């Protein structure tokens, strides 16, 4: 086992990552991506990035795209290679509780599961009792109530996420649409809502550049200073610096450079849609998304060589009937498994995706789609698997009940990666056991199952089974469990820290203060 794999107890080690691509194919894709970065190159809307790239050896040609200045930048392979050389292969996502740190190592095989990302809706189960016209019996049915996302839901989500044992990192999962939230105060409030309710790593995008300083300041107060924050970055960032195909967004590049200079971890996230903003075939998609991730990493490393950076590829497929994203499909798995291999080839930690339900409501279809990708994608051992909890309707909706179900399914997906236990010593023990049982009265192995049961080596089965024989009670059972999770004690920040944060953070809403 790799050293970093041993450094963390969270997540799961995938002992033999599945290599969908051969070494030769990896090299072909690498070459294709680098060729693309040279020709046609990237279309960059950020002047500072252009001059950094030029200084490093790229050539740029100014153009005009609609209302904006833009540059066609041709990046030679050596500039990208140089950036990959300085990018660290190990990145730590810090956490309020240091035991919850996520240690990513591009050369290790540990996989972590987390949430995400900004759904407009929160869909909750409200059990209601009806008298059935079919048999005249009273039945309780999980009625679904859909509400717009808000700060309160975000706080609740972070608290639930704290309780879910298979959730390793938190990306905020609902968009906040409260009337007192504005562009000028949104970031500080959503970061605080997360940090004040979870002790696991908080990873997030920043909407408004001007609030970055306040967010970093807040994190520094929590850990006790800038130096401490770099050691234990309780906040890490996501920047969607690429607009597929191959365009660098001005405002986001600005943030990416600022975060790089702060030395805080950042995910370069690019999310092309196969069929609309990227080729739909596997090779085309991966060649492009890989080029995009490399372009982001290059800008990041030019801004601050050695800054912690994560290869974030979120390639999805288009639905053919309405061009929405589609997650629970085989192509999605192919794209993502390939990207994990590419990131590993570059020795840069990878941020990947699994577990989005395309279905609109929690339950059977959503769970099938989720289970499909939970099982497939982690086999390629990407470091981070985001979007894994509660997402429905292709990331439009978050369902806390589904998140609880997902926690269980991720447990199953993780269990798949347990080692076989085949070794010389075990063989001797097994022969002895079988012989003993053959000479026992009922020839039963129950006695021998107990040790494994107690050591947690036997998977627990489905915890939300109902008693009824003519009704699926899963969601009702999950709802009860969810109520228990929500009733658990909150892991709020200490009072003095909260006080300092509220004193020094403009725009923070008083109603988020637990000590008020």
């Amino acid at each position, binding site marked *: 086992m790799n050293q970093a794999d041993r450094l963390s107890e969270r997540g799961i080690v995938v002992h033999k990552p599945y290599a969908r691509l051969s070494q030769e194919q990896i090299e072909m894709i690498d070459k294709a991506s680098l060729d693309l970065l040279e020709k046609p190159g990237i279309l960059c809307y950020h002047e500072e990035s252009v001059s950094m790239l030029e200084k490093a050896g790229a050539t740029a040609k100014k153009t005009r795209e609609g209302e904006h200045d833009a540059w066609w930048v041709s990046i030679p392979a050596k500039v990208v290679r140089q950036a990959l050389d300085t990018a660290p292969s190990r990145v730590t996502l810090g956490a309020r509780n240091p035991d919850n740190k996520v240690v990513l190592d591009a050369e290790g095989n540990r996989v972590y599961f987390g949430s995400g990302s900004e759904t407009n809706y929160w869909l909750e189960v409200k059990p209601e009792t009806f008298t059935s016209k079919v048999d005249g019996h009273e039945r309780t049915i999980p009625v679904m109530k859909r509400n717009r996302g808000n700060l309160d839901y975000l706080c609740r989500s972070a608290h639930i996420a704290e309780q879910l044992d298979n959730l390793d990192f938190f990306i905020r999962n609902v968009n906040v649409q409260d009337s007192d939230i504005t562009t000028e105060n949104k970031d500080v409030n959503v970061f605080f809502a997360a940090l004040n309710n979870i002790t696991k790593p908080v990873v997030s995008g920043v909407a408004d550049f001007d609030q970055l300083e306040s967010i970093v300041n807040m994190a520094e107060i929590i850990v006790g200073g800038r130096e401490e924050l770099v050691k234990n970055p309780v906040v890490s960032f996501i920047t969607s610096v690429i607009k597929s195909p191959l365009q660098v967004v001005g405002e986001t590049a600005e943030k990416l450079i600022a975060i790089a200079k702060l030395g805080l971890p950042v995910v370069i996230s690019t999310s092309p849609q196969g069929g609309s903003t990227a080729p739909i075939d596997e090779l085309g998609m991966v060649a492009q998304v890989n080029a995009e991730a490399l372009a982001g990493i290059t800008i990041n490393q030019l801004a601050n060589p050695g800054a912690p950076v994560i290869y974030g590829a979120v390639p999805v497929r288009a639905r053919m009937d309405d061009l929405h994203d589609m997650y629970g499909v085989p192509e999605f798995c192919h794209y993502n498994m390939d990207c994990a291999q590419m990131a590993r080839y570059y020795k840069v930690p990878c941020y990947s995706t699994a577990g989005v339900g395309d279905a609109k409501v929690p339950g059977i279809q959503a769970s099938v789609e989720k289970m499909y990708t939970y099982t497939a994608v982690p086999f390629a051992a990407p470091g981070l698997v985001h979007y894994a909890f509660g997402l429905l309707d292709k990331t439009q909706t978050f369902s806390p009940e589904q998140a609880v179900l997902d926690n269980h399914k991720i447990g199953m997906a993780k269990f798949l990666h347990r080692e076989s236990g085949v070794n010389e010593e075990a063989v001797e023990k097994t022969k002895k056991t079988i012989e003993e049982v053959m000479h026992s009265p*009922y020839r039963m192995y129950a*006695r021998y199952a*107990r*040790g494994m*049961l*107690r050591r947690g080596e036997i998977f627990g089965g489905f915890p939300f089974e109902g008693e009824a024989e003519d009704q699926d009670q899963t969601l009702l059972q999950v709802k009860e469990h969810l109520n228990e999770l929500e009733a658990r004690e909150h892991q709020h920040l200490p009072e003095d820290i909260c006080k300092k944060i509220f004193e020094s953070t403009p725009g923070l809403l008083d109603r988020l203060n637990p000590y008020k």
Partner: protein
Amino acid sequence: MSKDLIDQIVNNVLQGRRNKDDEGIEEGMAGDPGVAELVQEALDNGIDTNEILLNGLSKGMEMVGEKYETGEYFIPDMLTAAEAVEEGMKVMEPHLVKGESGSGKGKVIMATVEKDLHDIGKNLVSIMLKGAGFTVVDLGIDVPAARIVEAAEEEGAGLVGLSALLNTTMSNMGDVVKELEEKGLRDKIKVIIGGAPTSEDFAKEIGADSYGKDAFAAIREAEKLLK
């Protein structure tokens, strides 16, 4: 001293340890005396068989049942504990006087009926009945009705437990009831049936006394029928 031994018996039933060679639920117990050795020691110390049975073996098994109900124990724990009780009963057997209360809760003949080879459920029921303090004579699988009745008569059993998992073999349970009637034994020997295709209604249909849906129902029903 006697209290201490009885407590150790209870604890070893909870740990499911038949004898000194067994591991318990907690590791590192192999080598310490198990139920067989402890019961022997108790007898050697002149502790009453009734005391060993009620406050040791049965008490332990009762606690196992409670732990199962609360979700702390699982079926493998119950079976293992029941095996340990059975081992204790074997040591006690020569010391039990027929008819004395110490001879347990009564005798049950268990069998899977003719042409049926399924025995996982039947074994579970047998082991659990033993663990609950019944004396069980298990005839195994594919047992003809005549053999079952013969054994019940020979052993002086008060109850016959029949298992069937096939709807082609469940009718053979009715044959056992008929055979008991023909031999004039029906009023002395009760019949309980079980197995996935059987039901309460089916039990009535063939004239059996009771039906048990699982091993716990089997214990409950057996206790009623043999009272």
